[in-house]
Protein backbone atom coordinates (compact mmCIF):
# COMPACT_ATOMS: atom_id res chain seq x y z
CA UNK A 1 0.00 0.00 0.00
CA UNK A 2 2.52 2.55 1.16
CA UNK A 3 5.20 1.80 -1.37
CA UNK A 4 2.50 1.81 -4.04
CA UNK A 5 1.41 5.36 -3.39
CA UNK A 6 4.98 6.63 -3.32
CA UNK A 7 5.67 4.82 -6.56
CA UNK A 8 2.56 6.37 -8.12
CA UNK A 9 3.70 9.78 -7.01
CA UNK A 10 7.15 9.18 -8.43
CA UNK A 11 5.61 8.09 -11.71
CA UNK A 12 3.52 11.24 -11.93
CA UNK A 13 6.59 13.28 -11.11
CA UNK A 14 8.44 11.44 -13.86
CA UNK A 15 5.64 12.12 -16.36
CA UNK A 16 5.73 15.80 -15.55
CA UNK A 17 9.50 15.94 -15.83
CA UNK A 18 9.63 14.06 -19.10
CA UNK A 19 6.81 15.94 -20.85
CA UNK A 20 8.58 19.22 -20.29
CA UNK A 21 11.84 17.77 -21.52
CA UNK A 22 10.18 16.28 -24.59
CA UNK A 23 8.54 19.60 -25.43
CA UNK A 24 11.89 21.35 -25.16
CA UNK A 25 13.46 18.61 -27.25
CA UNK A 26 10.88 19.03 -30.00
CA UNK A 27 11.48 22.76 -30.02
CA UNK A 28 15.20 22.20 -30.62
CA UNK A 29 14.78 20.13 -33.83
CA UNK A 30 13.48 22.87 -36.16
CA UNK A 31 16.14 25.24 -34.87
CA UNK A 32 18.89 22.83 -35.87
CA UNK A 33 17.10 22.36 -39.16
CA UNK A 34 17.09 26.09 -39.76
CA UNK A 35 20.82 26.38 -39.22
CA UNK A 36 21.33 24.00 -42.12
CA UNK A 37 18.99 25.94 -44.37
CA UNK A 38 20.59 29.36 -43.95
CA UNK A 39 23.18 28.41 -46.55
CA UNK A 40 20.75 28.96 -49.41
CA UNK A 41 21.78 32.31 -50.79
CA UNK A 42 19.30 33.19 -53.43
CA UNK A 43 15.68 32.67 -52.64
CA UNK A 44 12.69 33.80 -54.60
CA UNK A 45 9.36 34.16 -52.93
CA UNK A 46 5.99 34.34 -54.53
CA UNK A 47 4.39 37.67 -53.81
CA UNK A 48 1.54 37.20 -51.38
CA UNK A 49 -1.56 39.34 -51.05
CA UNK A 50 -2.48 41.19 -47.87
CA UNK A 51 -5.11 38.70 -46.77
CA UNK A 52 -2.83 35.71 -47.05
CA UNK A 53 -0.17 37.55 -45.05
CA UNK A 54 -2.68 38.36 -42.34
CA UNK A 55 -4.07 34.83 -42.15
CA UNK A 56 -0.66 33.23 -42.31
CA UNK A 57 0.69 35.35 -39.51
CA UNK A 58 -2.41 34.96 -37.38
CA UNK A 59 -2.00 31.25 -37.78
CA UNK A 60 1.60 31.49 -36.57
CA UNK A 61 0.73 33.74 -33.63
CA UNK A 62 -2.14 31.54 -32.49
CA UNK A 63 -0.42 28.19 -32.82
CA UNK A 64 2.94 29.31 -31.47
CA UNK A 65 1.22 31.36 -28.78
CA UNK A 66 -0.86 28.43 -27.58
CA UNK A 67 2.15 26.13 -27.62
CA UNK A 68 4.23 28.67 -25.69
CA UNK A 69 1.41 29.16 -23.19
CA UNK A 70 1.13 25.42 -22.58
CA UNK A 71 4.88 25.19 -22.24
CA UNK A 72 4.92 28.14 -19.87
CA UNK A 73 2.18 26.63 -17.71
CA UNK A 74 3.96 23.27 -17.44
CA UNK A 75 7.19 25.11 -16.69
CA UNK A 76 5.55 27.26 -13.99
CA UNK A 77 3.94 24.24 -12.32
CA UNK A 78 7.26 22.50 -12.28
CA UNK A 79 9.11 25.49 -10.86
CA UNK A 80 6.51 26.46 -8.31
CA UNK A 81 5.24 23.09 -7.13
CA UNK A 82 8.23 20.79 -7.44
CA UNK A 83 11.42 22.79 -7.09
CA UNK A 84 12.34 24.39 -3.78
CA UNK A 85 12.80 28.16 -3.85
CA UNK A 86 16.51 27.67 -3.30
CA UNK A 87 17.05 25.44 -6.34
CA UNK A 88 19.64 27.03 -8.65
CA UNK A 89 17.79 26.03 -11.83
CA UNK A 90 14.61 27.65 -10.57
CA UNK A 91 16.44 30.80 -9.60
CA UNK A 92 18.16 30.87 -12.97
CA UNK A 93 14.89 30.61 -14.89
CA UNK A 94 13.07 33.05 -12.63
CA UNK A 95 15.72 35.70 -13.08
CA UNK A 96 15.52 35.32 -16.86
CA UNK A 97 11.75 35.40 -16.77
CA UNK A 98 11.93 38.65 -14.84
CA UNK A 99 14.22 40.13 -17.48
CA UNK A 100 12.17 38.92 -20.45
CA UNK A 101 8.82 40.05 -19.06
CA UNK A 102 10.28 43.48 -18.43
CA UNK A 103 10.97 44.07 -22.12
CA UNK A 104 8.10 46.00 -23.77
CA UNK A 105 6.45 44.16 -26.64
CA UNK A 106 7.27 46.92 -29.12
CA UNK A 107 10.97 46.08 -28.75
CA UNK A 108 10.27 42.49 -29.74
CA UNK A 109 8.34 43.89 -32.67
CA UNK A 110 11.35 45.95 -33.73
CA UNK A 111 13.57 42.87 -33.36
CA UNK A 112 11.24 40.84 -35.55
CA UNK A 113 11.08 43.59 -38.17
CA UNK A 114 14.85 43.94 -38.26
CA UNK A 115 15.27 40.19 -38.76
CA UNK A 116 12.80 40.44 -41.60
CA UNK A 117 14.45 43.45 -43.17
CA UNK A 118 17.89 41.91 -42.99
CA UNK A 119 16.53 39.02 -45.03
CA UNK A 120 14.24 41.06 -47.23
CA UNK A 121 17.21 42.13 -49.36
CA UNK A 122 18.06 38.52 -50.22
CA UNK A 123 14.49 37.78 -51.15
CA UNK A 124 13.45 38.33 -54.70
CA UNK A 125 9.74 38.87 -54.85
CA UNK A 126 8.15 37.47 -57.97
CA UNK A 127 4.57 37.36 -59.12
CA UNK A 128 4.62 33.90 -60.54
CA UNK A 129 6.52 30.70 -60.20
CA UNK A 130 9.02 30.56 -63.06
CA UNK A 131 11.57 27.80 -63.44
CA UNK A 132 14.71 29.76 -62.73
CA UNK A 133 18.13 28.17 -62.43
CA UNK A 134 20.14 28.06 -59.20
CA UNK A 135 17.32 29.54 -57.21
CA UNK A 136 14.87 28.14 -54.77
CA UNK A 137 11.32 29.27 -55.26
CA UNK A 138 9.10 29.12 -52.21
CA UNK A 139 5.80 30.58 -51.21
CA UNK A 140 6.13 33.41 -48.69
CA UNK A 141 4.97 31.28 -45.74
CA UNK A 142 7.71 28.71 -46.21
CA UNK A 143 10.77 30.81 -45.65
CA UNK A 144 12.30 28.76 -42.85
CA UNK A 145 14.58 31.32 -41.24
CA UNK A 146 11.98 34.04 -41.21
CA UNK A 147 9.39 31.64 -39.93
CA UNK A 148 11.65 30.34 -37.16
CA UNK A 149 12.77 33.81 -36.23
CA UNK A 150 9.16 34.76 -35.77
CA UNK A 151 8.39 31.60 -33.82
CA UNK A 152 11.32 32.16 -31.49
CA UNK A 153 10.33 35.74 -30.86
CA UNK A 154 6.76 34.77 -30.04
CA UNK A 155 7.97 32.05 -27.70
CA UNK A 156 10.34 34.49 -26.00
CA UNK A 157 7.50 36.95 -25.58
CA UNK A 158 4.74 34.61 -24.51
CA UNK A 159 6.45 31.99 -22.39
CA UNK A 160 8.03 34.17 -19.70
CA UNK A 161 4.81 36.10 -19.17
CA UNK A 162 2.88 32.85 -18.87
CA UNK A 163 5.43 31.46 -16.43
CA UNK A 164 5.20 34.57 -14.30
CA UNK A 165 1.41 34.86 -14.26
CA UNK A 166 0.96 31.12 -13.68
CA UNK A 167 3.40 31.21 -10.79
CA UNK A 168 1.47 34.13 -9.30
CA UNK A 169 -1.76 32.19 -9.76
CA UNK A 170 -0.26 29.16 -8.02
CA UNK A 171 0.98 31.32 -5.17
CA UNK A 172 -2.57 32.58 -4.69
CA UNK A 173 -3.42 29.10 -3.41
CA UNK A 174 -2.46 29.83 0.17
CA UNK A 175 -0.45 27.60 2.49
CA UNK A 176 -3.32 26.93 4.97
CA UNK A 177 -5.40 25.28 2.23
CA UNK A 178 -2.48 23.12 1.15
CA UNK A 179 -1.55 22.24 4.73
CA UNK A 180 -5.15 21.39 5.62
CA UNK A 181 -5.20 18.94 2.71
CA UNK A 182 -1.78 17.45 3.47
CA UNK A 183 -2.76 17.04 7.12
CA UNK A 184 -5.68 14.87 5.99
CA UNK A 185 -3.29 12.58 4.14
CA UNK A 186 -3.58 14.00 0.64
CA UNK A 187 -0.63 13.35 -1.65
CA UNK A 188 1.12 16.14 -3.52
CA UNK A 189 -0.66 15.10 -6.69
CA UNK A 190 -4.08 15.14 -4.97
CA UNK A 191 -3.41 18.58 -3.52
CA UNK A 192 -2.50 19.76 -7.00
CA UNK A 193 -5.54 18.32 -8.75
CA UNK A 194 -8.14 18.97 -6.04
CA UNK A 195 -7.09 22.37 -4.77
CA UNK A 196 -4.31 24.11 -6.63
CA UNK A 197 -5.61 23.66 -10.18
CA UNK A 198 -9.29 24.49 -9.46
CA UNK A 199 -8.42 27.57 -7.42
CA UNK A 200 -5.71 28.87 -9.74
CA UNK A 201 -7.39 27.91 -13.01
CA UNK A 202 -9.13 31.18 -13.81
CA UNK A 203 -6.00 33.19 -13.03
CA UNK A 204 -3.88 30.91 -15.17
CA UNK A 205 -6.34 31.47 -18.00
CA UNK A 206 -6.15 35.22 -17.45
CA UNK A 207 -2.37 35.03 -17.57
CA UNK A 208 -2.60 33.19 -20.89
CA UNK A 209 -4.76 36.02 -22.26
CA UNK A 210 -2.22 38.60 -21.20
CA UNK A 211 0.61 36.63 -22.76
CA UNK A 212 -1.37 36.29 -25.98
CA UNK A 213 -2.05 40.02 -25.97
CA UNK A 214 1.69 40.61 -26.05
CA UNK A 215 2.14 38.36 -29.05
CA UNK A 216 -0.75 40.09 -30.85
CA UNK A 217 0.78 43.49 -30.27
CA UNK A 218 4.01 42.38 -31.94
CA UNK A 219 2.16 40.57 -34.70
CA UNK A 220 0.38 43.85 -35.48
CA UNK A 221 3.72 45.53 -36.18
CA UNK A 222 5.04 42.56 -38.10
CA UNK A 223 2.01 42.05 -40.31
CA UNK A 224 1.94 45.75 -41.05
CA UNK A 225 5.56 45.56 -42.17
CA UNK A 226 4.99 42.49 -44.35
CA UNK A 227 2.04 44.10 -46.05
CA UNK A 228 4.01 47.29 -46.60
CA UNK A 229 6.88 45.32 -48.09
CA UNK A 230 5.03 42.87 -50.31
CA UNK A 231 2.37 45.11 -51.72
CA UNK A 232 4.87 47.40 -53.50
CA UNK A 233 4.33 46.10 -56.97
CA UNK A 234 0.63 45.41 -56.90
CA UNK A 235 -1.04 48.26 -55.05
CA UNK A 236 -1.00 52.01 -54.94
CA UNK A 237 0.47 54.04 -52.09
CA UNK A 238 -2.79 54.89 -50.31
CA UNK A 239 -4.01 51.31 -50.55
CA UNK A 240 -0.81 50.03 -48.98
CA UNK A 241 -1.13 52.49 -46.14
CA UNK A 242 -4.76 51.54 -45.52
CA UNK A 243 -3.93 47.85 -45.46
CA UNK A 244 -1.04 48.47 -43.08
CA UNK A 245 -3.23 50.46 -40.72
CA UNK A 246 -6.14 48.03 -40.99
CA UNK A 247 -4.09 44.98 -40.08
CA UNK A 248 -2.33 46.76 -37.24
CA UNK A 249 -5.62 48.08 -35.90
CA UNK A 250 -7.40 44.72 -35.93
CA UNK A 251 -4.59 43.08 -34.03
CA UNK A 252 -4.20 45.93 -31.56
CA UNK A 253 -7.88 45.71 -30.75
CA UNK A 254 -7.49 41.95 -30.19
CA UNK A 255 -4.52 42.66 -27.99
CA UNK A 256 -6.17 45.25 -25.78
CA UNK A 257 -9.33 43.16 -25.49
CA UNK A 258 -7.22 40.32 -24.13
CA UNK A 259 -5.57 42.67 -21.64
CA UNK A 260 -9.01 43.86 -20.55
CA UNK A 261 -10.13 40.26 -20.01
CA UNK A 262 -7.03 39.70 -17.93
CA UNK A 263 -7.64 42.80 -15.82
CA UNK A 264 -11.30 42.06 -15.19
CA UNK A 265 -10.57 38.48 -14.15
CA UNK A 266 -7.80 39.62 -11.86
CA UNK A 267 -9.81 42.37 -10.20
CA UNK A 268 -12.92 40.27 -9.68
CA UNK A 269 -10.78 37.44 -8.32
CA UNK A 270 -8.82 39.42 -5.77
CA UNK A 271 -11.77 41.46 -4.52
Amino acid at each position, binding site marked *: *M*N*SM*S*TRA*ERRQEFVLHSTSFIIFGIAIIPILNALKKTEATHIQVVSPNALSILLNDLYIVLSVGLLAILLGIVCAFYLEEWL*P*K*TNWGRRWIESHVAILTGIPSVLYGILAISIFLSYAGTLKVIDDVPSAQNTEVIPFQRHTTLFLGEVLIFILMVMPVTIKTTQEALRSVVT*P*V*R*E*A*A*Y*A*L*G*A*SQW*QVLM*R*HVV*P*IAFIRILAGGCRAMARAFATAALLIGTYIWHYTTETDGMSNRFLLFLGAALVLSVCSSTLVEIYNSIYNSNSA
Partner: protein
Amino acid sequence: MLTDEKQPVLRIRNLNIWYDDKQLLRDLSFEVQQKQVTAFIGPANSGKSTLVRCINRLNDFTPNFRSTGEILFKGIHLHEATDPTSLRKQIGMVFRKPTLFRCSIYENVAYGARISGVNQSEHLDTIVETNLQKTGLWAEVENILEETPEQLATGQQQRLCIARALAVEPEVLIFDEPCGELDPIETVKIETLVRDLAGDYTLIFATNKRRQAARVSDVAGFLYSGELVEFGATERLFTNPQDDRTEQYVTGRLG
Protein backbone atom coordinates in the same frame (compact mmCIF):
# COMPACT_ATOMS: atom_id res chain seq x y z
CA MET B 1 0.77 -6.38 14.97
CA LEU B 2 -0.98 -5.57 18.22
CA THR B 3 0.38 -2.64 20.14
CA ASP B 4 1.31 -3.23 23.72
CA GLU B 5 -0.91 -1.16 26.01
CA LYS B 6 2.14 0.04 27.86
CA GLN B 7 4.10 1.07 24.81
CA PRO B 8 3.97 4.83 24.24
CA VAL B 9 2.36 5.92 20.97
CA LEU B 10 5.12 8.41 20.40
CA ARG B 11 8.61 8.43 21.81
CA ILE B 12 10.73 11.47 21.11
CA ARG B 13 14.42 11.25 21.86
CA ASN B 14 17.01 14.04 21.77
CA LEU B 15 15.11 16.10 19.25
CA ASN B 16 16.94 19.20 18.06
CA ILE B 17 15.37 21.66 15.63
CA TRP B 18 16.91 24.40 13.54
CA TYR B 19 15.54 27.00 11.18
CA ASP B 20 18.49 27.77 8.93
CA ASP B 21 21.39 28.00 11.40
CA LYS B 22 19.28 29.18 14.29
CA GLN B 23 18.47 26.47 16.80
CA LEU B 24 14.87 26.69 18.00
CA LEU B 25 14.54 23.61 20.20
CA ARG B 26 17.29 21.76 22.07
CA ASP B 27 17.45 18.14 23.11
CA LEU B 28 13.77 17.36 23.65
CA SER B 29 12.85 13.93 24.99
CA PHE B 30 9.38 12.82 26.01
CA GLU B 31 6.75 10.17 25.49
CA VAL B 32 3.13 10.43 24.49
CA GLN B 33 0.87 7.77 25.98
CA GLN B 34 -2.13 6.21 24.33
CA LYS B 35 -5.55 7.83 24.80
CA GLN B 36 -4.31 10.74 26.82
CA VAL B 37 -4.24 14.43 26.14
CA THR B 38 -0.68 15.70 26.07
CA ALA B 39 -0.48 19.47 26.11
CA PHE B 40 2.42 21.76 25.28
CA ILE B 41 2.42 25.19 26.80
CA GLY B 42 4.81 28.06 26.43
CA PRO B 43 4.93 31.70 25.47
CA ALA B 44 4.50 32.89 21.87
CA ASN B 45 7.27 31.78 19.53
CA SER B 46 8.51 29.15 21.95
CA GLY B 47 8.24 26.52 19.20
CA LYS B 48 5.01 24.74 20.11
CA SER B 49 3.74 24.70 16.53
CA THR B 50 7.10 23.67 15.16
CA LEU B 51 7.29 20.80 17.63
CA VAL B 52 3.83 19.37 16.96
CA ARG B 53 4.28 19.75 13.18
CA CYS B 54 7.29 17.43 13.38
CA ILE B 55 5.02 14.65 14.49
CA ASN B 56 2.98 14.54 11.28
CA ARG B 57 5.97 15.59 9.16
CA LEU B 58 4.34 18.82 8.05
CA ASN B 59 7.70 20.53 8.45
CA ASP B 60 8.90 18.52 5.46
CA PHE B 61 7.56 21.37 3.36
CA THR B 62 9.63 24.01 5.15
CA PRO B 63 12.91 24.21 3.21
CA ASN B 64 14.96 25.84 5.98
CA PHE B 65 13.79 23.37 8.63
CA ARG B 66 16.31 20.85 9.94
CA SER B 67 16.17 18.38 12.80
CA THR B 68 18.20 15.66 14.48
CA GLY B 69 17.12 13.03 16.98
CA GLU B 70 14.45 10.39 16.88
CA ILE B 71 10.70 10.37 16.73
CA LEU B 72 9.30 6.87 17.14
CA PHE B 73 5.68 6.25 16.24
CA LYS B 74 4.55 2.97 17.81
CA GLY B 75 8.19 1.98 18.12
CA ILE B 76 9.19 2.71 14.53
CA HIS B 77 11.21 5.69 13.32
CA LEU B 78 8.88 8.24 11.73
CA HIS B 79 10.87 8.44 8.52
CA GLU B 80 11.21 4.69 8.17
CA ALA B 81 7.74 3.53 9.14
CA THR B 82 5.68 4.80 6.23
CA ASP B 83 5.55 7.49 3.61
CA PRO B 84 4.35 10.88 4.90
CA THR B 85 0.96 10.56 3.19
CA SER B 86 -0.13 7.47 5.08
CA LEU B 87 1.54 8.74 8.24
CA ARG B 88 -0.69 11.81 8.09
CA LYS B 89 -3.73 9.57 7.78
CA GLN B 90 -2.74 8.08 11.13
CA ILE B 91 -1.71 11.36 12.73
CA GLY B 92 -4.24 14.07 11.94
CA MET B 93 -4.07 17.76 12.70
CA VAL B 94 -6.39 20.65 13.49
CA PHE B 95 -5.00 24.14 13.00
CA ARG B 96 -5.48 27.46 14.72
CA LYS B 97 -7.49 28.98 11.90
CA PRO B 98 -10.30 26.77 10.59
CA THR B 99 -9.54 26.25 6.90
CA LEU B 100 -12.36 24.53 5.05
CA PHE B 101 -12.32 23.60 1.40
CA ARG B 102 -14.43 25.35 -1.19
CA CYS B 103 -17.01 22.59 -1.38
CA SER B 104 -20.08 21.57 0.59
CA ILE B 105 -20.10 20.74 4.29
CA TYR B 106 -20.75 17.13 3.29
CA GLU B 107 -17.77 17.00 0.92
CA ASN B 108 -15.50 18.57 3.51
CA VAL B 109 -16.20 15.74 5.94
CA ALA B 110 -16.09 13.11 3.20
CA TYR B 111 -12.73 14.44 1.95
CA GLY B 112 -10.49 11.94 3.73
CA ALA B 113 -12.57 9.01 2.55
CA ARG B 114 -12.70 10.34 -1.01
CA ILE B 115 -8.95 10.74 -1.34
CA SER B 116 -8.55 7.20 -0.06
CA GLY B 117 -10.78 6.01 -2.88
CA VAL B 118 -14.14 5.54 -1.10
CA ASN B 119 -16.96 6.45 -3.49
CA GLN B 120 -20.08 4.52 -2.47
CA SER B 121 -22.60 7.09 -1.32
CA GLU B 122 -24.09 5.01 1.51
CA HIS B 123 -20.63 4.50 2.96
CA LEU B 124 -19.85 8.20 2.66
CA ASP B 125 -23.21 9.13 4.21
CA THR B 126 -22.39 7.02 7.24
CA ILE B 127 -18.92 8.52 7.57
CA VAL B 128 -20.27 12.06 7.35
CA GLU B 129 -23.08 11.49 9.85
CA THR B 130 -20.96 9.63 12.42
CA ASN B 131 -18.22 12.20 12.46
CA LEU B 132 -20.52 15.19 12.54
CA GLN B 133 -22.27 13.54 15.45
CA LYS B 134 -18.96 13.01 17.27
CA THR B 135 -18.32 16.75 17.15
CA GLY B 136 -21.89 17.65 18.10
CA LEU B 137 -22.44 19.35 14.78
CA TRP B 138 -24.95 16.99 13.20
CA ALA B 139 -28.06 18.64 14.60
CA GLU B 140 -26.78 22.07 13.55
CA VAL B 141 -25.92 21.24 9.94
CA GLU B 142 -28.15 18.25 9.13
CA ASN B 143 -30.28 20.33 6.79
CA ILE B 144 -27.53 22.32 5.11
CA LEU B 145 -25.10 19.53 4.26
CA GLU B 146 -25.00 20.50 0.61
CA GLU B 147 -24.27 24.15 1.30
CA THR B 148 -20.83 25.71 1.69
CA PRO B 149 -19.35 26.00 5.18
CA GLU B 150 -18.77 29.75 4.87
CA GLN B 151 -22.09 30.56 6.52
CA LEU B 152 -21.13 28.72 9.71
CA ALA B 153 -19.82 30.52 12.78
CA THR B 154 -16.06 30.23 13.40
CA GLY B 155 -16.61 27.79 16.25
CA GLN B 156 -18.80 25.59 14.09
CA GLN B 157 -16.20 25.76 11.34
CA GLN B 158 -13.54 24.61 13.77
CA ARG B 159 -15.72 21.68 14.86
CA LEU B 160 -16.28 20.89 11.21
CA CYS B 161 -12.49 20.80 10.78
CA ILE B 162 -12.31 18.38 13.70
CA ALA B 163 -15.03 16.21 12.16
CA ARG B 164 -13.15 16.26 8.87
CA ALA B 165 -9.95 15.17 10.63
CA LEU B 166 -11.77 12.44 12.58
CA ALA B 167 -13.30 11.08 9.37
CA VAL B 168 -9.81 10.00 8.27
CA GLU B 169 -9.83 7.71 11.33
CA PRO B 170 -6.51 8.78 12.80
CA GLU B 171 -4.97 7.28 15.90
CA VAL B 172 -3.38 10.51 16.97
CA LEU B 173 -4.89 13.95 16.56
CA ILE B 174 -2.83 17.09 16.96
CA PHE B 175 -4.49 20.36 17.97
CA ASP B 176 -2.39 23.45 17.37
CA GLU B 177 -4.08 26.23 19.33
CA PRO B 178 -7.54 25.22 18.11
CA CYS B 179 -9.24 27.99 20.10
CA GLY B 180 -6.89 30.78 19.06
CA GLU B 181 -9.57 32.43 16.92
CA LEU B 182 -12.63 31.55 19.00
CA ASP B 183 -14.73 33.36 21.58
CA PRO B 184 -15.10 31.97 25.14
CA ILE B 185 -18.39 30.13 24.50
CA GLU B 186 -17.02 28.37 21.44
CA THR B 187 -13.77 27.67 23.30
CA VAL B 188 -15.65 25.81 26.02
CA LYS B 189 -17.31 23.63 23.40
CA ILE B 190 -13.99 22.69 21.83
CA GLU B 191 -12.44 21.98 25.22
CA THR B 192 -15.34 19.72 26.18
CA LEU B 193 -15.04 17.98 22.84
CA VAL B 194 -11.32 17.39 23.34
CA ARG B 195 -12.02 15.79 26.71
CA ASP B 196 -14.67 13.57 25.12
CA LEU B 197 -12.38 12.50 22.31
CA ALA B 198 -9.60 11.57 24.73
CA GLY B 199 -11.34 8.25 25.39
CA ASP B 200 -10.86 7.13 21.79
CA TYR B 201 -7.84 8.99 20.48
CA THR B 202 -4.38 10.02 21.51
CA LEU B 203 -4.42 13.79 21.52
CA ILE B 204 -1.66 16.38 21.41
CA PHE B 205 -2.64 19.91 22.27
CA ALA B 206 -0.50 23.02 21.80
CA THR B 207 -1.71 26.20 23.46
CA ASN B 208 -0.42 29.38 24.97
CA LYS B 209 -3.25 29.54 27.46
CA ARG B 210 -1.99 27.82 30.59
CA ARG B 211 -5.45 27.43 32.19
CA GLN B 212 -6.73 25.78 29.06
CA ALA B 213 -3.91 23.24 29.23
CA ALA B 214 -4.73 22.64 32.88
CA ARG B 215 -8.37 21.99 31.97
CA VAL B 216 -7.94 19.66 29.01
CA SER B 217 -4.71 17.72 29.45
CA ASP B 218 -3.56 14.66 31.38
CA VAL B 219 0.12 15.33 30.74
CA ALA B 220 1.73 18.66 30.00
CA GLY B 221 5.08 19.96 28.84
CA PHE B 222 6.42 23.46 29.27
CA LEU B 223 8.52 24.86 26.43
CA TYR B 224 10.67 27.83 27.24
CA SER B 225 13.71 29.34 25.51
CA GLY B 226 14.27 26.30 23.35
CA GLU B 227 14.01 23.73 26.09
CA LEU B 228 11.37 21.38 27.36
CA VAL B 229 11.72 22.73 30.87
CA GLU B 230 9.33 20.31 32.47
CA PHE B 231 7.17 17.44 31.33
CA GLY B 232 4.79 15.42 33.49
CA ALA B 233 1.29 14.89 34.82
CA THR B 234 -0.72 18.09 34.38
CA GLU B 235 -2.00 18.01 37.95
CA ARG B 236 1.54 17.91 39.33
CA LEU B 237 2.97 20.38 36.84
CA PHE B 238 0.43 23.00 37.79
CA THR B 239 0.25 22.43 41.53
CA ASN B 240 3.77 21.35 42.35
CA PRO B 241 6.19 22.35 39.56
CA GLN B 242 9.77 21.13 39.96
CA ASP B 243 11.41 23.98 38.03
CA ASP B 244 11.38 27.62 39.06
CA ARG B 245 10.59 28.77 35.53
CA THR B 246 7.61 26.43 35.32
CA GLU B 247 6.32 27.77 38.59
CA GLN B 248 6.74 31.34 37.42
CA TYR B 249 5.00 30.53 34.16
CA VAL B 250 2.00 28.69 35.59
CA THR B 251 1.49 31.37 38.18
CA GLY B 252 1.59 34.01 35.45
CA ARG B 253 4.83 35.73 36.43
CA LEU B 254 6.71 34.62 33.29
CA GLY B 255 5.85 34.86 29.64
